[in-house]
């Protein structure tokens, strides 16, 4: 089987698998609505009581849009892959992949892209509908160039987030017990990526540290592309940073996995 055939096959399997869990997806969309609602009321109270038009550098409209966009982007980029990969390492399912004439990394990446394909499109439509509604409501104009770039930004975010998960999952090579561990790391990654609040909330120092890390290019950056906070040159700059971090994380993950595989015992399977 050619290289191309192999991975398109995995991609298609991913698409099929995702269509099997449609109801789950709808429920998860509905549950994404509640945190948005809670934060909507918080921010409305915050901005309503004060003459100060800006908090953490955001106007009210930008903050509300950030909240909505961040919640939806989190749903899109969240992969759950660290859990899957870590259990493959722990229960020995990785064995069969080591002898197969296909790269484990490639298999996981393409099956993820396949799984996300359908929802990615649905979410894009929802995002644009929300945006259309909100920009009419709040009278903000999101530059057309930002809209055009967004699909690209989101795709890069998804790949970058996958690489982060893939790297973190390698910790399973060293851990004896993994049950809850990746739930914890996953949550921290979402917080650091700006999935709960924009990273400005953490304060200046934390922000400076986060600027040297890849996390905020997965949720914080795409959300700000769509709330009109970033000008087009900043968007393009951000996309370059995303590309940089993808390259960097690719190297890091390869290195970590090479060391990890030397430790790998292949128990079970």
């Amino acid at each position, binding site marked *: 089987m050619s290289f191309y055939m192999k991975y398109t096959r995995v991609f298609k399997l991913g698409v099929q698998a995702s269509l099997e869990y449609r109801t789950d997806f709808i*429920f998860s969309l509905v*549950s994404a609505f509640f*945190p948005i609602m809670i934060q909507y009321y*918080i921010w409305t109270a915050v901005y309503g*009581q004060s003459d100060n038009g800006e908090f*953490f550098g955001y106007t009210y409209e930008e903050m509300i849009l950030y909240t909505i966009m961040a919640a939806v982007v989190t749903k899109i980029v969240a992969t759950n892959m660290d859990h899957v990969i870590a259990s493959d390492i722990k229960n020995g399912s990785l064995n069969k992949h080591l002898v197969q004439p296909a790269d484990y990394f490639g298999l996981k990446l393409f099956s993820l892209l396949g799984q996300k394909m359908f929802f990615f499109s649905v979410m894009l439509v929802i995002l644009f509908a929300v945006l259309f509604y909100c920009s009419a409501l709040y009278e903000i104009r999101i530059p057309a160039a930002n809209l055009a770039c967004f699909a690209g930004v989101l795709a890069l975010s998804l790949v970058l987030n996958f690489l982060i998960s893939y790297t973190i999952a390698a910790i399973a090579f060293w851990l004896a017990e993994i049950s809850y561990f990746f739930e*914890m790391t996953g949550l921290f990654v979402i917080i650091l990526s700006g999935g709960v*609040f924009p990273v400005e*909330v953490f304060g200046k120092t934390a922000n400076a540290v986060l600027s040297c890390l890849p996390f905020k290019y997965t949720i914080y950056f795409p959300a700000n592309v769509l709330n009109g906070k970033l000008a087009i040159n900043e968007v393009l700059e951000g996309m370059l940073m995303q590309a940089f971090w993808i390259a960097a994380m690719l190297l890091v993950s390869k290195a970590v996995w090479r060391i990890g595989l030397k430790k790998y015992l292949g128990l079970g399977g």
Partner: protein
Amino acid sequence: MKAWHGTMKSYLQIYLRFIKNCFIAQMEYRTNFILGIAVEIAYLFSKLLYVVVVYETDLHIGDITPDGILMFVGTYTMMTGLYAGLFFTNFVRISDYVRTGELDLLMVKPVSLQFIVSLRYIDLGMPIPNLAAGITMVAIGWHALGIPVTFYHIAIFVFYLLSALLITYGLMIIPSILSFWFVNTGGLAGIFYAIWDANNMPMPIYSRLIQRIGVYVLPFLVITNFAPMTVMGRLDGGLMVWGVLAPVLLLAAVRQMWKQAIKNYSSASG
């Protein structure tokens, strides 16, 4: 009366056995125990971000000051800990019991089925960070607001926490009971967790409609709002009575639902 007393006593003894048994089991897998605590700390961290935002923006909700809000967040954190420790593990398992037919085995045991299914497992690690942080937040808020530390105030606060605990049981078990009819209710449970998080903020922040629904229809908001509101003197007589009635009505309704669910159980597979 005497028989009722005896039954209560034996159930209490069984429950103490459950606690002992779970403690022994958890001490055997200590890494898991510690990781469970670590996960809760991560969740706690994400909740504390809200506190940061409240103080940074000097948020006042009506005339509730940031210190007042801290008391609500603290109560919410405590209740989350109690829910995670006492009920969560059990409720997650219910749909597995139904799917795998394990319920057959539990049915033949000489105790109430609802009791053993919904209270069998107690997690002693997970609640620790939440309870510690929650109690601290309530204490800080309590002190900052200058609420007198009298027996009456503490007793009434604890009383409404107990009422909240009963409501928590009644509400959060609903998705699990529905799994007797629909096999997979994970999505619905996810929605309930999301609604649960609405308690993170005092209820006056929400619109009137949401407050009405949250107090009278699905009494989620009663869980973390009533205890701090009573000690702050913000709960009027009518609501105080509702805080007592709501858990009773809810538990009665859940009991009926449970009976219907058991009638519907077909013991498939297993």
